[in-house]
């Protein structure tokens, strides 16, 4: 039957082994699929990060230019509502213009599958997490790369960046 076959496919997909990067934010452990991270850099190497002037999305304060693309730097502490600590690393994500400030990388690990987030969870965490991993007696939320910024937030940030560029051009023209 079609429905049963679809369920079986979903079940197989959910139980597929996956390599993840375990990282820490404000003493909380998270995982992210390794293939969704393009690059991990020290925040010290981000001297070229530009401050962005906007007050709407407080978790984004800077942008980084990479390969003619503007990445928005999301502070993971602010994103997850955790106590803000000074981040030391930035995860540049693949296929999405987001860089995430984190405290430290714990290690890479292979998870045997992803547990669906129980329906009891009904807040923003449904966008934040793809599911939960159970690894070495620990339940670890596996973050969704698409959950860091919504399409509306991208639009607002793109608007603020374009406005800032326009003002810079006007200033340059006056000089």
């Amino acid at each position, binding site marked *: 039957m079609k429905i049963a076959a679809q369920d079986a496919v979903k079940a197989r997909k959910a139980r597929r082994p996956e390599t993840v990067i375990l990282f820490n934010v404000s003493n*909380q452990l*998270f995982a992210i699929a390794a293939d969704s991270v393009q690059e991990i850099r020290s925040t010290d190497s981000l001297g070229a990060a530009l401050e962005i002037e906007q007050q709407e999305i407080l978790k984004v304060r800077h942008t980084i230019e990479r390969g003619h693309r503007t990445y928005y730097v999301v502070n993971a502490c602010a994103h*997850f*509502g*955790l106590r803000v600590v000074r981040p030391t690393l930035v995860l540049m994500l693949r296929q999405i213009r987001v860089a995430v400030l984190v405290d430290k990388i714990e290690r890479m690990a292979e998870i045997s599958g992803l*547990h669906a987030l*129980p*329906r*009891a*969870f*009904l*807040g*923003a*965490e449904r966008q*934040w997490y793809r599911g*939960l991993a*159970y690894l070495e*007696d*620990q*339940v*670890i*939320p596996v973050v969704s790369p698409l959950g860091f910024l919504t399409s509306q937030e991208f639009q607002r940030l793109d608007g603020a960046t374009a406005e800032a560029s326009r003002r810079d051009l006007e200033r340059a023209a006056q000089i």
Partner: protein
Amino acid sequence: MSGADAENAQSYVLLQIGERRFALPASEVSELAPPVRLHQFPHNSPLVSGIIVRRGRLVPVYDVCPLLTGKNSPTHQFYLVARRHFGSASEPAAIPVNGDSELVTADTVQVTSPAYVSGRLMHGGESIEVLDLDRLVAFESREKNQVDYAELNS
């Protein structure tokens, strides 16, 4: 108890939450779990305090003690695992209790208030509220959301 009463009687699990006793229909209860590790991570869901792992399954824990007793949950607690229903689907749900639980057979009388109580039963001269877990956690979520909304608009 008369013969007719015995026929209508159902089984309930009596549980202790804080200093009060409540009941849940035994048909909804899976197990009484020992004080296992509570796994916590960031989220915005009211009432949910974390996850416990039972028989390879991840079970959300609903901290109902403040709602039912007005006090914070004691530490070193057991977990009563029952089922929460979402339309035609359901998933396990745990509530922290102390270790004193017992199975009784009793009749109940229906009550309409508060919304999360489906009835009352008499046991050992004590009137005990029978909880409706689905309504209880939905009630708390709704109350919390209303408070959040009020705070946003104040």
